[in-house]
Structures are given as C-alpha cells and as structure tokens.
C-alpha cells in the first residue's frame, strides 16, 4: 500500500470548501424547517428538539470529505472550513461557530484516526457520525448549558441527535460518496481509486 501524503492540494481544498457550500445551502433550507418545528414546540418547552433533528447535517461535510479524500486531518479541516464559511455568510452565532466546528470535526477525526485512515467502510462512517455526535453533545453542555436540563430530557435530546447524525452524516454521506464514485468524477481522489480497483 502506498504511503498517504499529508500535503493539501489546491483542488482538494476547493473540493472540501465546495462540499461545505452545498451542505451550507442545504442546511439553510433545513434550518427553516427546524425553526418551524422549534417554534411549534416552544409552548411545550420542547424547542431544542427542532434543532436536534437537523443536527446531523452539520457533520455531513466532515464525514463526506473524510470519505472522499481519506487522509489525516480532513474531517477536522472540513468542519473548520465549513464554520469559517458560516461566519463569512453571517451566521448570527458568529465567532463561536468556529470553536464548535473544531470540536465536531475532532469527533469524526478521532474515529478515522483510530482506523489509521485505512478502513473507510460503512461501519467506520457510522462510528465517525457517532463520534461527532458525542463531542458536539459535550460541547452543548458548555455552550448551551445542557447541564441545566434534567436527565430524561437530556437522554431524549441525545437520542434524537444520534439518530439524526446516523442518518445524515452516516447513511446519506456513504450513499452519496459511493454514488459519486460510480459516476467516475472522483478518479483523482482516494475514494474513486478504491472503487476502481
């Protein structure tokens, strides 16, 4: 097996940034839906659920970019680029989003790293989603003060976020990645090469 080089090419950076833009647009659309749900749930005190439902979309850039490029640092970098783009677009949570990006990316990165960036099958993709889910949930304790909620409510929030991340950043990213590889567009990248052989 050839040694994987850890140098970033310009086209890889733009690829990751482009993926982030596409998911950024999709996320904006999802947020309208989520805020509608959240508003509807506000009188019942359940509004954080609306946000949790689409939470997995946040990690899609990390897992998809990691899946396509398959090299160290992609997941974390993709999330950082995604968050910088969020800030450029004027996300009103502003600067703190970058911190969140680093933390979420680190979750997926840890999982990819524990497989030494060699194994990128469905199982690892799901695990990476779970990784991001866990680190982001820990971050929610710091940022949104989740420690103030009661335990049963926290479990509910966590389960919804877990399902959301498994579906969006696990299942959908794997399907999209394989689909893209089949089109032959990814010949210049790791995933495309592994599909050829």
């Amino acid at each position, binding site marked *: 097996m050839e040694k994987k080089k850890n140098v970033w090419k310009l086209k890889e950076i733009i690829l990751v*940034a*482009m993926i982030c833009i596409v998911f950024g647009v*999709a996320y904006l659309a999802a947020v309208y839906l989520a*805020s509608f749900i959240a508003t509807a749930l506000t*009188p019942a*005190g359940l509004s954080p659920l609306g946000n949790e439902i689409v939470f997995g979309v946040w990690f899609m850039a990390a897992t998809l970019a990691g899946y396509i490029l398959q090299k160290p640092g992609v997941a974390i970098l993709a999330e950082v680029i995604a968050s910088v783009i969020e800030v450029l677009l004027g996300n009103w949570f502003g*600067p*703190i989003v970058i911190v969140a990006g680093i933390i979420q990316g680190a979750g997926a990165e840890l999982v990819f790293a524990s497989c030494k960036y060699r194994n990128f099958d469905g199982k690892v993709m799901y695990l990476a989603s779970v990784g991001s889910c866990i680190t982001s949930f820990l971050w929610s304790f710091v940022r*949104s003060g989740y420690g103030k909620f009661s335990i049963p409510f926290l479990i509910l929030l966590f389960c919804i976020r877990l399902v959301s991340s498994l579906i969006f950043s696990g299942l959908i990213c794997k399907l999209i990645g394989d689909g*893209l590889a089949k089109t032959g567009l990814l010949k210049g990248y790791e995933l495309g090469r592994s599909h050829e052989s």
Partner: protein
Amino acid sequence: MKHLNPGYKLLSLMIASLLLSATFHVRLNLLITAVCLIVTFCTPGVNRKRLLLGLFPFFLAALGMFTAGLCFGAEGGTQGVEVTVFGQRTLYASNLTTAMQLSSRILAYGSLGMLYAFTSNAFELIMSLMQQFHLPPKFAYGILAAYHFFPVVREEYGIVGAALKVRGVKAGPISTKRLFPMLVQAMERSESLAMAMESRGFEEQVPRAVAFQVTLRWVDFAFLFGVNGLIIVGLIFV
C-alpha cells in the same frame, strides 16, 4: 467597529463567548446583549432593516430555550412542572432561574455574533486570517473562491428542486435526490476552479505580494483586552 482588524475582532469575540460559557450570569448576559445590540445598531453603515429582521429568529430561539428550561430544568430534583387533571401547570421558582440562565446566554451569544456579522466583511476577514494568523494562501484563496459560489449554489438548489417537481419526484430539503446532482456539480466545478487558478499562475510555495493590506493597530489590542477584561470584571463584580 468596522475599522477594527477582522481577525482580531473574531478572536476577541470568540474569547468573550468562551468566557461567558464558564458561568451562568443572567444580569451580565442581558447587559452584554443590550450593549452589543446598541453598538451594532449605532455603527454607521449597518443594514438596520436586516438587523431588525435578524432579531426575530434570535429572540424566538431564546424563547424556545426559556420554555425548555422552564419545563425540563434539572434544579430542585423534580421536573418542575405539575400538570393537574385539568391541564393547569404549576412552575417552580428554581426552574425560572434555569430558564433565565439558558435564554439569556443565547441572547448574549447571539448579540456577540451579530455584532461581528453586521460590522465585518468576508474578504477582509480572510485577508486578515492570512496576514495576521498565517493561514496558508492556498486555503485563503481556495475558501474565498468557493465562497463566491454561494449565490450560484443557492440558485442551483432551487433549480434542482424545480426539476424534480416537474418530474413528479418528491424530495425533502435535504434528500439525496436533491443533494446528489448538486454535489456532482460541485465536484466538477471545484476541479475546473482549481485548474483555472493554477493555469493563471497561482502557486503555493512562492512569496506573494498582497494588494489589500489589513492593518493591525493598537486599537485592536485595546479591543481584545478591553472587552474580555470588562467581562471578567463583570463576572466577578456584577
């Protein structure tokens, strides 16, 4: 506000948000919210109509956290809400505190973010990250190049959606049917974009000259230490 160094402003507000994460200080949070919103509103050149529109979802989010804290707060060991047979709800005072803590924090974060978002410019931020924070030029220009495609991609999102509708295919906002064609486009676009940049002489390892210099002045450091110093003082004394 607009003349501060964008990179340092980002750093200052990031540290400020982290400082606020350390504690739950309702009065300080509300104070910061008020100050930030007033400063943003009074900065010349800010799009005030957009700011006011932006406030709406922001307060809605805070309200959502408020009711969530009210109903599902952990304090007092109980749920905090008693629902009688008639559906009447009784709330405990301790949960009101939780609710205030959670929602005031959203307000404080959001107002710090808005202060940043409404007084900064994307291009200047990237230039500042490159010049003051040593972001490699290939990342800086790569991100900027992709960023400028945002309006195109957003339009494309609508077009793909319409195309699916015409064919009678049902697709949700984040369904693979929608995302896939967009990602195919993104892959092709990123390849040609990278090739275009390189063929026009964009090289990675050569010294670069920049046409747009972002300056770093003492005001930026004053802002960094001033804002965070005040928050620390506030956390201790207010």
